């Protein structure tokens, strides 16, 4: 009798353990990024590596979960991105899409995600519309956006004496948005915009536009562009003696990968705003070392760090709910829980989907000041989390008025 009871008890225990082990909560995460063109170094394979680290650090087994990772290249095309997102959600059981550089693609994925009630963790795209008029209950915007960049870089430069501005603007939606946001900040802080010029996208030669900037005698030349355009403009600016003539560049969207491509000789003195720097503290350094196992010789950018932080926070929310099925519910949980990771520190996700964390103003070092590879930035100022991002009252986000 006693043997039977203990046997039954053992069997029951075994069955519950087996049942528990047999039903781990399945979660699938898709990193949709630019693997082969303009933003591949800022995002791309480095973002996939970051997501992998997040899953590893989360330790799915300990939470009774099983997490799979897939990735794809959207080639900077909205239709490719939207169709991959659709396929992932409809056929491949993907629960959350992460990264997505290129605002046009992100906006398309934003719509698809809301339709299918999944989760969209944006780290790569810059458009502040994602937490503004296009905000969605299924979307969380991590790392940076055009408002943060405009306010961080714009405000501090004007306050430190850069009163007159001339813009070199990439002639497409993102460039115009960046110029518009920065102009608003400059004017609000007592500065003046003396001129601007619209440069076609993927333009190789900036000499003509740099001449116009020189002629304007503005103290600050604002670069409302990204990637190869920014690199070309700065490189050629060095040639034309822009900085020697007393003018300074303000890089409105720059990542450390761009600084590495330029070299310190050409980029020294540049002022920029980023919420992450690999060499900030022991935590970021340790993480970077692990990340570099996958990407030797490179340094992680804000976007890639954002992928890590967003993925980690998402997984914690899923663990709390014990299910990834209802996208809106998971995002609501992400908004309830404060976020904490070694890369961005303590922060939170606001009602409009905006993840809040501190931002920093950096200046690029001179070659003499840099002691080792990657030692590129000096910290000039810290912008508190509460000030770094657009206040919710200015969002025009439909979610907030409900």
């Amino acid at each position, binding site marked *: 009798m006693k043997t039977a009871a203990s046997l039954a008890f053992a069997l029951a225990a075994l069955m519950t353990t087996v049942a528990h082990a047999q039903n781990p909560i399945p979660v699938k995460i898709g990193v949709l990024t630019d693997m*082969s*063109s*303009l*933003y*591949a*170094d*800022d995002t791309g394979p480095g973002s996939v590596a970051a997501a992998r680290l997040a899953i590893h650090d989360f330790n799915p087994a300990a939470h009774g979960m099983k997490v799979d990772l897939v990735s794809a290249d959207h080639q900077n095309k909205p239709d490719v991105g939207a169709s991959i997102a659709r396929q992932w959600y409809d056929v491949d059981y993907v629960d959350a899409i992460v990264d997505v550089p290129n605002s046009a693609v992100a906006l398309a994925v934003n719509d698809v995600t809301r339709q299918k009630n999944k989760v969209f963790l944006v780290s790569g795209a810059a458009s502040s519309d994602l937490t503004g008029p296009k905000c969605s209950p299924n979307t969380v915007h991590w790392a940076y956006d055009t408002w943060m960049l405009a306010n961080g870089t714009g405000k501090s430069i004007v306050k430190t004496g850069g009163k007159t501005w001339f813009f070199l603007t990439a*002639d497409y939606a993102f460039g115009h948005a960046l110029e518009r946001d920065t102009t608003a900040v400059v004017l609000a802080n007592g500065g003046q915009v003396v001129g601007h*010029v*619209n*440069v*076609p996208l*993927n*333009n*190789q*030669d900036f*000499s*003509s*536009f740099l*001449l*116009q900037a*020189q*002629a304007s005698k503005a103290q600050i030349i604002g670069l409302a562009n990204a*990637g*190869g355009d920014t*690199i*070309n403009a700065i*490189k*050629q600016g060095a*040639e*034309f*003696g822009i900085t020697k*003539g007393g003018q300074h560049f303000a890089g409105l969207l720059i990542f450390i*990968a*761009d600084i*590495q*491509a*330029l*070299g310190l*000789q*050409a980029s020294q003195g540049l002022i920029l705003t980023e919420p992450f720097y690999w060499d900030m503290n022991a935590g970021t350094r340790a993480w970077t070392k692990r990340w570099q196992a996958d990407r030797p010789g*490179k340094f992680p950018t804000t976007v890639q760090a954002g992928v890590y932080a967003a993925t980690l926070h998402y997984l914690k929310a899923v663990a709390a709910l014990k299910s990834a099925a209802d996208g809106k519910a998971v995002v609501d949980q992400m908004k309830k829980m404060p976020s904490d990771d070694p890369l961005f520190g303590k922060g939170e996700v606001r009602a409009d989907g905006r993840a809040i964390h501190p931002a920093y103003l950096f200046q690029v070092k001179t070659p003499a000041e840099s002691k080792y590879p990657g030692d590129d930035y000096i910290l000039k100022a810290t912008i508190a989390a509460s000030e770094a991002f657009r206040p919710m009252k200015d969002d025009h986000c439909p979610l907030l008025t409900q």
Partner: protein
Amino acid sequence: MFEIFGIPSQALFGQLLIGLINGSFYALLSLGLAVIFGMLNVINFTHGAQYMMGAFAAYLLLQYLGLNYWAALIIVPLLVGATGIIVERLFLQYVRKLDHLYGLILTFGLALVIEGFFRNYFGSSGEPYQVPDALQGGHNLGFMFLPNYRAWVIVFSLIVCFATWFAIERTRLGSYLRAATENPTLVRAFGINVPRMVTLTYGFGVGLAALAGVMAAPIYNVSPQMGSDIIIVVFAVVVIGGMGSILGAIVTGFGLGIIEGLTKVFFPEASSTVIFVIMAIVLLIRPAGLFGRIA
């Protein structure tokens, strides 16, 4: 200082000079394309990728062998020209007798393959390359600050363009080349090794592209995309100048550089498109191009 159409004359002269500098690159690249088309009857879409290889070769020579810009100017065109010869032997010789468009598609495919490899290996952000020490700095010309390196670009391009034109139009070797274009069989009957001449000509055209690449490295971002960004424009230049016309390529290259420069002042957003407008107009009025011969 007076004003022309609302722009101060100083600024205008500065823009014209800049246009001339850009025109140098267009001229060098379209010269290579014109030589190749004239000789091989192949539209070499790989030209952009070969230009990119030239820039990367300069970077790699500096990075790993410590060879500076001046050494690169000589070594790189030879190196990349050699790869061109391999391409000609392996692929191009089979399409020369077919319709032009097959050659175009083949070379386009090769361009994609080369660019893809470079992107995979180097990433897309680009590599740093500095202006050589001897050419650093610049002079204030009064109406603008002209970097020394840019002045060097104009001068050197003019020399190379003139030398090439002279070699093809005025020397005996050039006359063999031109004869072989018109009647290869007859030229072979005279004992001249036409296939070898063709192969070497392709190598030379590719070498010109690589030379342009080395010259571009200090001022443009050395990235795998640099070729595909410029090839379409150079194409348009060659078509406008007249495919196969050496003089046409040179004159149109410089000329279009200037027109593009002016557009950047008056209507900057359209500066990428103005070349296509001109191409459409020229094709409708003079389909053989400004200097071309066959329609």
